[in-house]
């Protein structure tokens, strides 16, 4: 597995840059990831999304459905893409330190 320096620490990431050591995630890691995903600087709105994703994941061990994400944050999908140009999966989930969404492509 490749390693990356994120938030000043070395973390294992997969080929797509998703972190593989979830326990190492922190605000700084997120911000560095946000740079990669063109979501930097992170505003309150960014954090709202990222925090929601993280909380949901920690509680349920899964990423929330998009519909839920929109409902709960109050952002429509357009807005999410404005905040995270690479989208909720590749962008927001990566920044939130979630495992790489699989599911159907």
């Amino acid at each position, binding site marked *: 597995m490749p390693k990356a320096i994120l938030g000043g620490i070395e973390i294992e990431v997969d080929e*797509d840059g998703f972190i593989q050591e979830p326990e190492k995630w922190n605000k700084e890691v997120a911000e560095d990831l946000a740079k990669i995903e063109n979501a930097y600087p992170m505003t309150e709105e960014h954090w709202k999304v990222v925090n929601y994703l993280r909380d949901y994941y920690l509680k349920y061990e899964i990423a929330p*459905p998009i*519909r839920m994400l929109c409902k709960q944050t109050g952002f429509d999908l357009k807005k999410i*893409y404005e905040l995270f140009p690479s989208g909720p999966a590749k962008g927001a989930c990566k920044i939130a330190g979630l495992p*790489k969404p699989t599911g159907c492509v």
Partner: protein
Amino acid sequence: MEGETPLLDELEKGRWPSFVKEIKRAAKKNKAALDLLKVQELSYKDKITHWKHGGIVGVTGYGGGVIGRYCDQPEKFPEVAMFHTLRVNPPAGWFYKTDALRKICDIWEKYGSGMTNFHGSTGDIILLGTKTENLQPCFDELTEAGFDLGGSGSALRTISGCVGPARCEWAMIDTLDITYNLTMEFQDEIHRPRWPYKFKIKISGCPNDCVAAIARADFTVIGTWRDSIRIDQEAVRDYVEKGFDIESVVKKCPTEAISWDREKGVLNFVAEDCTRCMHCINKMPKALRPGLDRGATILVGGKAPIVKGAYLSWVIVPFMKMEPPYMEVKELLRKIWDWWDENGRTRERLAELIERLGLKQFLRDIGLPAVPQIVYRPRSNPYVFLRR
């Protein structure tokens, strides 16, 4: 290259055109194609795929359209260590001007492996294999050339329709226009996954269903008619006189709606018995033609086996007129998506959700009337949910 791939070389022999020859052709100019050839040879030897699971890569602003792919032996095959495909939305009906095709070729030679699928099974142009860093510039040039990405992920997939009115006398609806119109209307749904799972729309001009919509589309539009088949008895006789075996055709009419009166030389036809299966028309295109009161049957739920087994599409609207701008169909689609998104579980296709909650529930929530055309036959069990 010669001799390095003994197993694949076997597949250059034989009369059918060879994909191996194609890879080799590309490999002459392109290192990724050469590595692809080698990986494939290795798979033939090892009897196992050498592609790793998944990968999330893409272009800015989109959630899909690219299938990320990594090789499991990146050191050995560095040129295909990353080997993502782009799904490019083709023109409706897969009609091309050569200049458009050439542009794609040029772009793909520049950014990718030079290998393609014309087309993928959903109907996209598949540009097979490139590196992450090439995705965005490749995409940029594609849009420059007038092309956009198709669908992937939990999104609306690239819509396809049969050749239809462009070249077929049986097109009861304008399959190409519907395909194009819906594609343009739902660009957002195609590019930005948002649902429990994938969603496919396919449009066939008549019940022959030349895009296999009924088997493969969550939302299936099939052209049909309500009035009577038009029969040119003169032309029927002409067929028969030329030795055409009309009895063999009549015998296969599923409803016994047609019969051949040999004495009188007349093809008898009972319009109300005909279920418009196309069979007799197919066999005598010069003599029989579909009726003129045209529209479409809407079916939903077709899909492959994952998860709960394969489904054929189910009739939900026996007949709907199909005139631009197709508002009725668009409204129906939006209602269905909403219902599915609200009720569906992750990776639950529409058919599975309908099966779980009941077709009755679906019809009720969507606001569609229950008509007998929707079922082959009524329930045999006595289990009627009245309070659901």
